[in-house]
């Protein structure tokens, strides 16, 4: 099912966090949202599943606006979510956690049926966590836990799945497992990702966010250019082809500008002077910082 966020602006505590962001996820595609910390990825994602109502703009899943046309339940029957860290405070087992995915399909007082049990079994199996069904969520590794949350989203039987940095804190094997699983699903997947190489390897299209705006979008090869990465992250980048996957691989150099932390012992520079030329080598910056360390230590003593 297609997801279309159109010119979405979102305010939190009176402050604009996302400004006129648009996103189209074609049915069945895997869409990545990348960008630095604080660029608005999580906020935009929260607007896709009715956790945050946009101040302006619309979000449609299928042909229906999730706020104007769909109910909370209707939206939950179309979009399932895997959040960054939503471990409950209580000792739920894996199976109980996945059963929560049935909530939007159940009316008040409606009991679980054999069909629900089958759906939960199937979700556990697809996510590869059947063997963990009777374990407590809190006793699992981070990778196992993320797969359980994916299983819960699967049990929701939705055509759309939205994820917020699902690979955080996972080792590389768990990251590869998880994204492999997601890309094999027949549903539309929209996921925020930090790791640009993983985004390049698994996503069909990428949206790049910076300062609350979508500043680039499209197929991976068009988006993940050294120029865009430098512009968004302030880090020098080189792109090539990953011989194992045939997808784009990115390697990183130093920052294209000095760190924004104030450097002791230096007078104020205006912005132009502060911005080091792109050609400047990374070690020069490190030397620059190391030189000033003793001064700071002396200050501390």
């Amino acid at each position: 099912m297609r997801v279309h966020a159109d010119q979405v602006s979102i305010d939190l505590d009176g402050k604009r966090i996302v400004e006129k962001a648009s996103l189209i996820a074609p049915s069945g595609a895997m869409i990545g949202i990348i960008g630095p910390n604080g660029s608005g990825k999580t906020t935009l994602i929260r607007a896709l599943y009715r956790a945050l109502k946009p101040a302006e703009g619309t979000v449609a899943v299928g042909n229906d606006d999730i706020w104007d046309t769909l109910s909370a339940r209707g939206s939950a029957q179309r979009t399932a979510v895997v959040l960054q860290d939503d471990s409950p405070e209580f000792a739920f087992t894996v199976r109980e956690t996945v059963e929560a995915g049935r909530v939007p399909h159940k009316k008040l007082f409606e009991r679980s049926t054999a069909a629900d049990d089958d759906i939960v079994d199937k979700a556990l199996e697809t996510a590869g966590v059947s063997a963990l069904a009777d374990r407590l969520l809190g006793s699992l590794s981070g990778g196992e836990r993320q797969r359980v949350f994916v299983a819960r989203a699967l049990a929701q039987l939705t055509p759309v799945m939205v994820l917020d940095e699902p690979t955080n804190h996972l080792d590389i094997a768990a990251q590869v497992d998880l994204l492999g699983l997601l890309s094999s699903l027949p549903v539309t997947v929209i996921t925020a990702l930090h790791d640009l190489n993983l985004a390049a390897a698994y996503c069909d299209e990428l949206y790049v966010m910076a300062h609350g705006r979508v500043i680039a979008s499209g197929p991976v090869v068009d988006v993940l250019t050294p120029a865009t990465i430098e512009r968004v992250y302030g880090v020098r980048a080189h792109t090539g082809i990953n011989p194992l996957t045939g997808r784009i691989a990115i390697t990183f150099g130093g920052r294209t500008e000095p760190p924004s932390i104030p450097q002791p012992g230096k007078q104020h520079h205006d912005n132009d002077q502060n911005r080091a030329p792109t050609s400047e080598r990374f070690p020069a910056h490190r030397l620059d910082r190391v030189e000033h360390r003793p001064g700071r230590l002396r200050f501390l003593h």
Partner: protein
Amino acid sequence: MVRSEFTATPRAPQRSQRHDRAPFSSAREFRLLVVILVVSLGVVSTLSIGIGTVPLSPGTVWSSVLAHLGVPDAAVSAAEDQIVWTVRLPRTLLAILVGAALAVAGTVIQAVVRNPLGDPYLIGIVPGAGLGAVIVIVLGAGAVGGLSITAAAFIGAMAAFIATFALGRQQGRWPAVRLVLAGVAVGYLISAFTYFLQTVATPGQLQRVLFWTLGSVSGATWEDLPILALVVAVGMVWLVGNGRRLNGLAGGADLAASLGLDVGRFQLQLMGLVALMTGAVVAVVGGIGFVGLMIPHLARLLVGADHRRVLVTSLLGGGIFLLLADIVARTLLPPTEIPIGIVTAAVGAPFFIWLLASLGKRESAS
């Protein structure tokens, strides 16, 4: 597609198929537990009615009860019947209702504030009821327009709950930490007034305040019971029907929203119901601590975290526990009755120490 090459087969789970389910968490085990608890409740109730200055045998107790339910039985004397029907049975039923209501309320509050320390004290309900009661005791009913202690305590509970919820609100919802902080702030503010009133109270009034604060079911009458039973029964049915959604809410507001819940409305319904239940109970019996805190934890140890099971277990467990506490309260130092809140605290605090110790063990084991 190159993607398929990158899609390695998922790693097999490294640990063997161990389980750490709670002992009564499957459907069959849970039904067994419910039967055990219902039978225990019957046994403890019979004990509770039989124990006292005039001891009565279980046979006498049941004959008397059955006689009132329309089964004729001549074996009961009028005096015995009087003791059972007008004194001990209402007291026993009140203790069950109070324990059940407080335990269920604690379960819901812990789920809504996502905090294991959640109980009716934490969100201001009990302190609010306390202020209402203390105003009437110290300043007299005239100060609040002729209200009884019970009515004033109920209004106090509701007012404190409303203040807590007004303060804890943020963007149409009640974030867990904010709600807890609001409840604590309201609770302390109310306590300031309560303590101030106590400093101007006479020794006789202070004694009554103390007894109210520690709670008692000794004043039970048949008149108190129907309304309390109705509130608890209706509340319980609604809560069990919403058990699945409560599980969703325990994962946090955003997850609950993604599961199709109107989070703000659901939180308000849950807490409004809980405030009504505890407000009604506390207004009648005074402040009784630890039941709302301890029983839900005990229930989770038995049946796991699923609220559909925890709520039922808390209901029955809370009733049994408070009934036992009442038996201890009236038999420990005869003929004096000690306040029931002393008994619940004396049992509850060691339980928490044990819980801490066993939790520590479990964490180091995994």
